[in-house]
């Protein structure tokens, strides 16, 4: 009976499998369609952004406040490494870098995965030009402070843009099953003071 349940579980996972890039086959876990938003954001435009320090995949620790007076910061939270939509979001920013440079904006990618998992995932994606930070421990602490930690311990697919004075100028939680449109992010950056 247990064996049949296992077979049914595997088949269900298979049926939830969407079309993925061939490079992803065998390494991407697809959780299927998820509840679009599973948290209540605690910040809004005009708030001072809560500072944090997190370990980055490069080995250093990065604080939001280190960019104060220097760069606008786009916090790009994605739910989890090795999942379909997330694996198909940040690589797009590699060819859209000029929009970020033109608007004096750095991206900080954040997930609640641990660094080793993020490291392997980034390599599989072919590398990224921006730092990726781990909000793994205390688990999801930064995501929780921003009100974007989901009930299962992953982060929402959320974008928060902080200006050089540390003020939140854009806060958006996208349906976890979709990518935030690039044009929306570019428009938000172009409105920065």
């Amino acid at each position, binding site marked *: 009976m247990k064996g049949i349940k296992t077979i049914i579980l595997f*088949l269900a996972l298979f049926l939830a499998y969407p079309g993925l890039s061939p490079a992803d086959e065998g390494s991407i876990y697809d959780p299927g369609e998820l509840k679009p938003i599973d948290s209540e954001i605690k910040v809004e435009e005009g708030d001072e952004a809560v500072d944090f320090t997190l370990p980055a995949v490069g080995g250093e620790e990065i604080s939001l406040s280190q960019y104060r007076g220097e760069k606008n910061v786009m916090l790009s939270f994605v739910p989890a490494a090795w999942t379909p939509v997330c694996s198909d979001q940040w690589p797009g920013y590699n060819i859209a870098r000029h929009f970020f440079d033109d608007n004096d904006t750095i991206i900080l990618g954040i997930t609640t995965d641990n660094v080793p998992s993020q490291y392997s995932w980034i390599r599989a994606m072919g590398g990224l030009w921006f730092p990726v930070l781990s909000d793994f421990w205390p688990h999801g602490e930064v995501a929780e402070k921003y009100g974007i930690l989901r009930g299962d311990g992953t982060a929402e697919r959320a974008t928060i843009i902080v200006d050089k004075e540390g003020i939140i100028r854009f806060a958006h939680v996208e349906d976890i099953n979709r990518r935030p449109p690039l044009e929306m992010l570019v428009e938000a950056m172009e409105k920065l003071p």
Partner: protein
Amino acid sequence: MKRGVWSTFVSLFICMAMLGASHAWAEEMDNFPEENIQVPEEAVHQDYLGISGDENFVIGDVQADLVLVQVFSMYCPICQREAPDVNDLYDMIHEQGLEESIKIFGIAPGNSSFEVSVYRDRYEVEFPLIPDPDFVWHKHLGEVGTPTFYAVNPGNGRILHSHTGPFHDGIEAYLEEVKAHL
């Protein structure tokens, strides 16, 4: 315990077999869907495909002996990496005097017009690229992975050749393969 291990193996085997079958199906789909495709905005692209300025066209409207349809995404690392190769393919078709016989256009599942324009500008793509922001065409094509190329006879809609994933053997070899269907 043994039973659990065996059921896991059986499950994995079934899933792998089905996965293989699904991709074979995607690659061996007999006919290209006779569904509406958004007419490219630029007149030069409409002229290239030989279609009018109406809202939509179907594959059979393209004036060519063979149509190469590229399913891609600006977010797909392989599509980014191979964009110069695909440009080379377009150039080779012209250099070999086949520009009237073989036409290329791209469809971008989940990409908005803006996102497609980012890809076009970055790689200076000359052939038409058509956004599919709501994954409508992606569903028509069986949610195929990116990148995928179909070589289609527009006269009868038959898919004569399909290729999913990187061009491991090079773009010249791919062109020779599709030319065999002319």
